[in-house]
Every structure is written in structure tokens, then in C-alpha cells.
């Protein structure tokens, strides 16, 4: 029996800061290809964003929230290091307390980790219904150039065997040991990066191409058979590098390249980008999804679009709804002035 995505939605916080404001403050801007990025409001965090977007995704499906049997939450920037996070969202959205919930938090791969956890649940329980949400707003020290790209966003998916928008064709993963790239030592709120660029790029390419090639092989597919490819976007250049290594083109990447105007969405990067691709995909289109998390690992998922039902709020509409803030206000909202 086919399983897949029955509904989805994205949420992008309203505030934006432009790269020119960084250039004015620091003399340069280090996020390749990023023109502006999204910023959460002072009274938002990844849990409030997850609650909002989960509700939206549930409103987009003909099934009731009380039928949810599995809930998975993903973020690299949770407000607590210990305390269940998914419970806050599950409760406020009105999903059953008895749904099995899980938190996925330790790398930017967490978004697809949660999706695969949801799909595994549906594979084993075909009458079940899973909600998977990724919400992220990563933080780093303002002195660190890795901070420049960090944006904010969220996307949620309802997974089941009914009322499918996109059918899951298969998935594959690859995990390995790499260190020094994007990590947070215990007790440190900010992410670090040793900035060994070649080494980090080697990890990125190895993990993503091994996961994606394994999936292509198992489906007996070639990259050119896909209309869309969605790739982890720590900036707007990395996804084009990975795409060309795998044999995908910039045209296949175009529908999902949200980092140009939103920045690095961390664990929500691939989920928001997938929502953007689904927004414009036609019935019959195939979508290849490839995540990456430092440390390191990658998940690849392949979807076929089977319905033209779209999200209630499109990613493009969320990107267009914005208010610009300057760098000083950005520092205040991020809590960087203490």
C-alpha cells in the first residue's frame, strides 16, 4: 500500500535582515548567495513556530487531529536541553496525548530524521497518521562568520496512507564520523565551526552522494528523471555543489532554493524547501530530497506527486510577507546584547 505526504505547510517568521546590514556592521557578509534572511520575533521560538505550522498542516488534510498516532519534532535550537519538547506542541495543537512523540535535535539532518521516523510508523501501522514538524532558528556568536547565514523557518507534514499529495517511493541514509564542522559542545548555547572548509566539503559530498546514489540505485533511477531536487541549504551555494556532483542541474534545484531569501534554516532547511517544491510541482512530478547534518549524516527520500492539492499557505506567500529590521534590532531580538 502506498504511503506518503497527505498534507503539508510552511511558516516563515515575518522579520528579515538584509546582507547589506551585515556588510555595514562587519564589513562583509559570509553567506554565499543569501540576499536576506528570516528572523523570529522576540516572543517566538521553535516550539511556537512548530505549533503554528503543525496546525496549518493539519487544517490542510481531510483527517481530524484526534486521529494522530505519531508526532515527531525536529530542531537544532530547542529552548531546553532537557525536557520533552514535542509534548508542548502536541498538547497545544490538540493531538492526542497517547500519540507516540519524539524529539530530534542534534544535527541539521533532524528534519528528515523525523520524516523517516514518521514514515516508518506509517509503514508499520497503515491506519495510523503521523505529524512531522521541523522548526529551527539556529544561533551562533555574532563574532563568528557562521552566524551570518542563520535564518528561521518551519514546515510540517501529515503522513499517512490516505489522501496522498505525494507518494514516498523510497529512502536511503548514510552516516559516518566527521568532526569539527558545525558542533555545539555540551553547555554551550552557540554553535562552533573549526572552519576547515575542504574537510567539511568532503564530509558534505561523501555523505549526501552516498545516501542519494544508494536511493537512485535502489529505484533504478537517473537524476534527469526528476523534475525537482531538494538539497540541504546552509547557504545558497552548497546545494548547487551537491546537485552538480550528483548530476542534477540548477533548473531542478530552482523550485526549492529558499535560502537565497531565508538563509540557513537548519533542521527546517530541507522541510521548508520540500514544501516550496510541492507548492509548484505538477501531478506526476518526481522530487528527490537530500538532507545533510554535520557529524555527519545524510538522508535521501524520493517522492512522486499524485495530487494537485496544495498547502493552505504557500512558501512564496510566506517569503513575500516581511518587515525589515536593522542590525541593532536584530542583536536585541537575538538576545546578543546582554
Amino acid at each position, binding site marked *: 500500500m502506498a504511503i506518503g505526504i497527505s498534507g503539508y505547510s510552511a511558516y516563515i517568521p*515575518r522579520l528579515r535582515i538584509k546582507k547589506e546590514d551585515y556588510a555595514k556592521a562587519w564589513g562583509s557578509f559570509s553567506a554565499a548567495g543569501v540576499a536576506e534572511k528570516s528572523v523570529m520575533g*522576540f516572543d*517566538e*521560538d521553535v516550539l511556537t513556530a512548530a505549533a*503554528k505550522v503543525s*496546525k496549518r498542516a493539519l487544517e490542510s488534510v481531510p483527517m481530524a487531529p484526534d486521529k494522530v498516532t505519531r508526532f515527531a519534532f525536529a530542531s537544532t535550537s530547542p529552548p531546553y536541553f532537557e525536557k520533552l519538547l514535542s509534548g*508542548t506542541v502536541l*498538547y*497545544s495543537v490538540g493531538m492526542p496525548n497517547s500519540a507516540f512523540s519524539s524529539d530530534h535535535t542534534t544535527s541539521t539532518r533532524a528534519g528528515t530524521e523525523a520524516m523517516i521516523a514518521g514514515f516508518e510508523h506509517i509503514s508499520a501501522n497503515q491506519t495510523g497518521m503521523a505529524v512531522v514538524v521541523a522548526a529551527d532558528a539556529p544561533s551562533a556568536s555574532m563574532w563568528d562568520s557562521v552566524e551570518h547565514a542563520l535564518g528561521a523557518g518551519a514546515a510540517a507534514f501529515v503522513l499517512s496512507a490516505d489522501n496522498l499529495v505525494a507518494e514516498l517511493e523510497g529512502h536511503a541514509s548514510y552516516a559516518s564520523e566527521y568532526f569539527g564542522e558545525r558542533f555545539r559542545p555540551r553547555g554551550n548555547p552557540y554553535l562552533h565551526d573549526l572552519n576547515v572548509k575542504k574537510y567539511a566539503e568532503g564530509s558534505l559530498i561523501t555523505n549526501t552522494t552516498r545516501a542519494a546514489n544508494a536511493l537512485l540505485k535502489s529505484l533504478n533511477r537517473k537524476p534527469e528523471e526528476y523534475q525537482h531536487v531538494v538539497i540541504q541549504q546552509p547557504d545558497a551555494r552548497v546545494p548547487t555543489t551537491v546537485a552538480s556532483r550528483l548530476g542534477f542541474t540548477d533548473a531542478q534545484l530552482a523550485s526549492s532554493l529558499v535560502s537565497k531569501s531565508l538563509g540557513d534554516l537548519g533542521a527546517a532547511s530541507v522541510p521548508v524547501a520540500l514544501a516550496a517544491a510541492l507548492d509548484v510541482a505538477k501531478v506526476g512530478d518526481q522530487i528527490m530530497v537530500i538532507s545533510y547534518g554535520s557529524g555527519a549524516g545524510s538522508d535521501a527520500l524520493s517522492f512522486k506527486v499524485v495530487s494537485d492539492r496544495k498547502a493552505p499557505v504557500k512558501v512564496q506567500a510566506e517569503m513575500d510577507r516581511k518587515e525589515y529590521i536593522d542590525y541593532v534590532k536584530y542583536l*536585541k531580538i537575538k538576545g546578543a546584547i546582554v
Partner: protein
Amino acid sequence: MYWRTIPQRYKMIGQKCKKCGAINFPPKGVCKYCQTSSEFEEIQLSGRGKVHTFVLISAGGAPPEFAEQEKAGGQYPVAIVQLEEGPKVIGQIADVDPKEVKIDMPVKAELRKIYTEEEVIRYGFKFVPG
């Protein structure tokens, strides 16, 4: 105690008076309308309503738990919102340019951070346009 108010703050759970049928929100010990019954049935409110009236809180005007919000984000609106089920409730209007808040503007409740106390984040509803 904050924990007891979580159903109303996180998901807008109100009460329907078993005697007069009026909807109470936030929940009360005795029905605010008939003032005789303390028997209620819990109901899920839609979170939708419109701005009955509002004020803008500016520098120096915020209570201590909201002072940091005012300093970081600037002026913020606080409204009395008339919910579509009837009750009027006080809440902040978020995700809006304060200058764009208008009486009768349609709003919808959503989960936001209210303030942090004893390192515990207090979540609850605020209203956003929509």
C-alpha cells in the same frame, strides 16, 4: 498557579455554563453571566475574534515581565478581543506593525512566549491578524 491555566493559555479551552448556556473565558468559579451556576462543560474555542479596543505599550509602560520585550522589540499592542463565541479577553497583538492595529480588525489566537520566570518559559496565546 500557571500550570492550572495551561488549557486556557495553550489551547483556548473555555467553559459553557450548564444553567444559562453562556460561554465563560477565561474560566471562572461561578458563571460570570447568570452568577448562580458553578457547573460547566469544557469547550474548545475557535481562537477567532475581533479587536474590541486596544492600547499601545511604549517605553516605561510595560509591566516588569514584559519590559524586556518592549526594549528589544519596541512598542507593542495590547487589546481587548471579542471572541466569536462571545467573551471578551485581554491579549497582546503579535506579528503586526503596531500602527496597523485597528478596532474591529479580525484576529486569531496562536501560541507565543509570554514571559520567562524562574528560567521556565511561560507560553500562552497572543492574537495575530487573520
